[in-house]
């Protein structure tokens, strides 16, 4: 007998537009309540109170153009948002304000989401697509000074950057950038030299999304084809394909590794969210709820593991919230049969 597929814990409605990006802020102490930021195709950012499951505030700062990246900075009081109006806005949300205090104009018109990395107290690096199509620019925040511009050699031709991930092996050490490109390759950049350390052609199609586990030095990427690729970084800073997982339906819009590095979630064009064990890429579950492409997945940063949530935003205007596999200890058991999509 088939097991009933799990249901979302709840569903957030009311964006009235496709949901492109999600970002949790749940680490606060009482009386702060957990928050989910969502960015939609109508240019609005919704701030959801996860306790009441209702919208607290709506931020309108991208001129009706799609918002495709949001991330909190300085706790919950500041928010960075990137929109298709070629602006990255810094919002002040403290004490009920909701004003844009600063913004960066991006000359790029692609879909590539920014990546943020905290390098010191009060200092961040932000990687964003650059002026030239194949260029990535890294800024220091809050000063907005350019740290470096990463441009592949003229003959490399990886195409546009599609997906970025800044990381550093240890806090305070030299940061690296992993970037997925239009031609399906993933490139490891050394920020200090602005040099390519390694390049791995892991997809035939553009890399839609990637995430990286700096502890195990391995990452995962998804593209518009039906393959999920896990690659690792060896001591010599070489990227190598470790494993691929063939999907039945093509198209992975987003991948996210949970903070505890136990599971991986993918957002599928086939309307489905897939959960894998991160260690062996073992398929654990297919979460079937949305009625259109799932654009993004995100794990919450609740300090208590048992409260951790998974959120998925979809073209169907809904955000589904799931509470799964959040037992604190022990192996992941009772895996769901991975079902063949019909």
């Amino acid at each position: 007998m088939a097991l009933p597929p799990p249901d979302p814990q709840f569903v957030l409605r009311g964006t009235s537009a496709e949901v492109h990006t999600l970002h949790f802020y749940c680490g606060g102490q009482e009386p702060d309540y957990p928050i989910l930021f969502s960015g939609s195709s109508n240019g609005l950012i919704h701030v959801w109170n996860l306790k009441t499951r209702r919208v607290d505030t709506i931020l309108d700062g991208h001129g009706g153009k799609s918002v495709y990246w949001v991330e909190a900075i300085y706790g919950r009081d500041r928010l960075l948002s990137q929109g298709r109006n070629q602006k990255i806005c810094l919002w002040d949300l403290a004490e009920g304000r909701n004003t844009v205090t600063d913004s960066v104009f991006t000359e790029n018109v692609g879909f590539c989401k920014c990546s943020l990395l905290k390098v010191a107290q009060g200092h961040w690096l932000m990687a964003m697509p650059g002026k030239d199509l194949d260029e990535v620019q890294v800024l220091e925040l809050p000063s907005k000074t350019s740290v470096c511009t990463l441009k592949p050699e003229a003959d490399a031709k990886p195409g546009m950057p599609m997906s970025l991930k800044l990381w550093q092996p240890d806090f305070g050490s030299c940061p690296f950038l992993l970037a997925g490109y239009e031609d399906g390759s993933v490139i490891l950049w050394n920020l200090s030299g602005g040099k390519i350390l390694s390049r791995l052609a892991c997809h035939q199609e553009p890399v839609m999304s990637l995430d990286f586990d700096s502890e195990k030095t391995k990452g995962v990427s998804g593209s518009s084809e039906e393959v999920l690729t896990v690659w690792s970084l060896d001591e010599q800073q070489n990227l190598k394909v470790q494993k691929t997982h063939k999907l039945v339906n093509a198209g992975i819009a987003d991948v996210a590794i949970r903070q505890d590095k136990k599971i991986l979630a993918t957002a599928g064009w086939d309307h489905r969210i897939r959960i894998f064990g991160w260690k062996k890429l073992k398929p654990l579950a297919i979460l079937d709820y949305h009625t259109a492409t799932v654009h993004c997945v995100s794990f919450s940063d609740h300090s208590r593991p048992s409260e951790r949530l998974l959120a998925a935003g979809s073209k169907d205007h809904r955000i589904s919230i799931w509470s799964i596999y959040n037992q604190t200890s022990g192996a992941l058991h009772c895996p769901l049969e991975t079902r063949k999509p019909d």
Partner: protein
Amino acid sequence: MAVFDTPQEAFGILRPVCVQLTKVQTTENVERLQAQLQTVSDSALQELQEYVLFPLRFALKTPGPKRESLVQCVVQCITSILSTTCVKKQDLLQELFSELCLCLSSPSGLQPPAPLSEELKLTVIQALHVLMHSAYGDILLTLYQPSTLPHLGFAVSLLLALAEQEKAKQIKLAALKCLQVLILQCDCQEHHRPLDTVETRQCGNLFASFLPGISIALSRVITGDIKQGHMVTVSAIRLFYQTVCLVMADEQLATITQDEEKPSVEQSRLSELVVHRGPDWVKSTADKLSLLIHKIVEFASLHPHWKVRMELVELVHLLMLKCSQSLVESVGHLLKAVVGLVNDESNEVQSKCHEILRSIAELRTVAENRALADVLSENLHSLATALPRLMNSQDDQGKFSTLSLLLGSLKLLGPKVSIVLNSAAHLQRLSKALMQVLELDVADVKIVEERRWGPEDTLGEPLGSSQHGKGQKKYFRFFIDERIFLLIQQVCRVLGYYGNLYLLVDHFMGLYNESVVYRKQAAMVLNELITGAAGLGVDVLHERETAVSTEDLKGTITSILEEYTDQANWYLTTSIDTEGTSDELTVKHSRVRAIPRGAHSSSLISSSSPSSDPNPTIRSMNSNIWQICIQLEGVGCFAYVLGKEFRLLLASVLYPVLEKAGDSTLLISQTATGTMVDVCHACGYDSVQHLINANSDYLVNGISLNLRRVAHQPHASRVLEAMLRHSDASLLPLVEDVIQDVLSALDQFYDDRASSFLGVLSTLVAALEVQAPPPEPEMDDSGAEGETPLPAHAQIAKDVMERCIHLLSDKSLRVRLKVLDVLEFCVIVLHLHESHLLPMAHRAWPALVTRLINDDPLVVLRAFKVLCTLAEKCGDFLRRRFSKDVLPKLAGSLVTQAPVSASAGPMYSHTLAFKLQLAVLQGLGSLCEKLDLGESDLNKVADACLIYLSAKQPVKLQEAARSVFLHLMCVDPDATWLLLNQICCLLPYEPPHPSLQPVKLGGMGRQRTEFTDNVLGLLGELQRRETAAFQAGPREAPEPQPPSLTEALG
């Protein structure tokens, strides 16, 4: 009579009689003295007191047997002297005291009292009483010396014997009264000199010797035959505690030291009599007293007379107040008494008990005196242990007292409850006892049978009554008396008030999950625990030190509610008539949880669920119903506890409750409705409607998720219906969102679910119709078909209509009927958007035609109604189709059916065929008009309807047929005129000029026929209209007023 004021005069008067009496002791002489005494003033008599008393005392002391009458007479005389004079001398007092006592003793002196007449006994007792009152305070105290112990002892034993053995109530009472005076506790109006501490202690020392005798004898009196009258018992109880207090008062005992003056009495005999109230003595005396007190409490607390119980309460009060340390062994009994009487049927006793409990609590004797707390906690343990047995064996009254006792013990323990319950043994016993006592009687078939009828929901009604604190009346296995339940409720609340909430909730949650046998009771207890923890509806003696914080309450409540609304506890088999719910649930249950804990548990059903019982019995269903109701009541309680804070929990709770409000079991739906009202009040909403409206997003969430489960779809659609019924246009975006879920669920589970979804769709489109924005001029007329975006509500209607087209040919009659309803609503909602409606109508047409001409009459009827609406909205779009596909068939059936109805009896009007004819006739007229039918079609209609103008047809059909012609008159008045005149024409139409041809009409000169009346009526109407139109000028004739369609079809 002359009064002699001076002693001299008095002496002169009294002397002769005194002398005479001394010489000859006869009754007559005593009476003479008595008579003379009346003439002497009190002051004079006081001077001569001893003189006058002498002959009397002499008479008593004369050796040898005396006549009783003489003794009585003498004693009476002494009494009368003493009552007006004071005894000022120690000797006199002591002597009189002994002499009077001797009057009662038997000659042998060993076995008092002597077998004397009752009158004499009474007289002597009264004399003693008077004597004690006539003595000066200081003088009186001289009686209380170690040296007088024997005298006192003699008197005490005499009086006790009288109190105990006499038959006459009067004597018993007098003896007891006298004893009371003797122990210096007289409560009469006269002034008694209060004793100082030292004197009190001396008296205490003295009476310590008598305590055993007095207490034993009194306990016998108290527990004696009830027939002795309550006054005796009351006096005896009072005397008992007064004596005990005198001797065992903690205050006194505390001042007694080891080397206390061993009384300075030389005689060793006396010193043996005197008791030293050292610790050992106190201990052993207290032990013995404890037995007596136990006996008294047991007896008196069940005494039928309230004054006795009242006196018992006084006893407890005083002993607790004064002797709680010395009598610590008895405290258990004492508390038991007062706690047991706290719910006494007498209000006086009740309030006294409350007062005492409060004062005990305030004194903190319980809280700070460890020994006392130990006693209480032991009591509690033994009571909890005995409770199950007692609940089986006692009658309701007994159970009531037992539980009163339990409640009282808990209240007195107060803050210590939490310490006591830290002992696993205590908690275990107590909880098991509660589980047993609260066992419900689930045999009643009615609970299972009673279904919800009538209107779909009652939520919208102005205000259901709040059920808080009452809940549904429950039937328990072990008791009937409602008061017992209230007691248990208090017990639980007191536990919640003082206890460690986490520990208690955890424990009872454990029982809830442990077995279905405990589940209902545990839920009841949990509900009350929380109420008590919030300090609501709980009656306590001392405030707790720290109240539970709202945050903690919220956390606890959240976790309880999670359990309550878990699938395994919320979806239970409650009926066997499966409108498809329960059986599916049972099939789908599964042991395995697909996602480990933390996954949203509601998606999975564990097999421990009672719903998995494949053959539910009445008992199990009744039990399940109660479980759901108790859980619903819990939701109400919790809302009450949290107030507006409960709003945060609505996200998870509102849906399940609303779902139950639509349950088909009456009890469940009633309870859930009550809960909705409670929640509404608690959260500060004006009405249930407001509550639903303001939280529709939560409901939509629940609906959407539940629609994904086949088994839950009927619930989900019920909730959606309820929501729609209470929502307004502001919710349209939300509704739009969830409707997509409904439609996709419908598409997915077409076959088996259509019926339940159609209910929702019908409510939905009905709501859309009501909420549709005010009509705007049709904008998309010129636009390409379907290109202009539709307003949301119209889009929904269109989506729904699309599904209806598929379902019009469903094989289930019910479904087809319902679809037609929905379809009609869709048409109404869409009518402003012709470019969308017409294509839909076009697509629906073939199926609709089939319904009209080739289906069950019921369906034809409904379909015709839809047709009429469609005609109203789509106008001439339908004309050709109608005249081609439908009209011939309709006209044909009217014609064939006409002879049947013409010759039918009165019962015919109840048949479906009749209703069909009626509906067609009533609708046809306006159809002709709306569709603007051509001439030949109109003729077809007229021909078919004409036969119904026959007087042989049922009146209603004639009426309906007339309405067709009234419509036809509007469309083509001339043709109608002609047609009617072909049938019947009374007026001779003379040509206005001879050159004109004479008018020849078919009806002229005809005999009166079955059609005459109706035709003439119609012609008259036509005439009237023409005239009116002529007079009004070239305006159009007024619209005919046929009966409205809905009215006719309804």
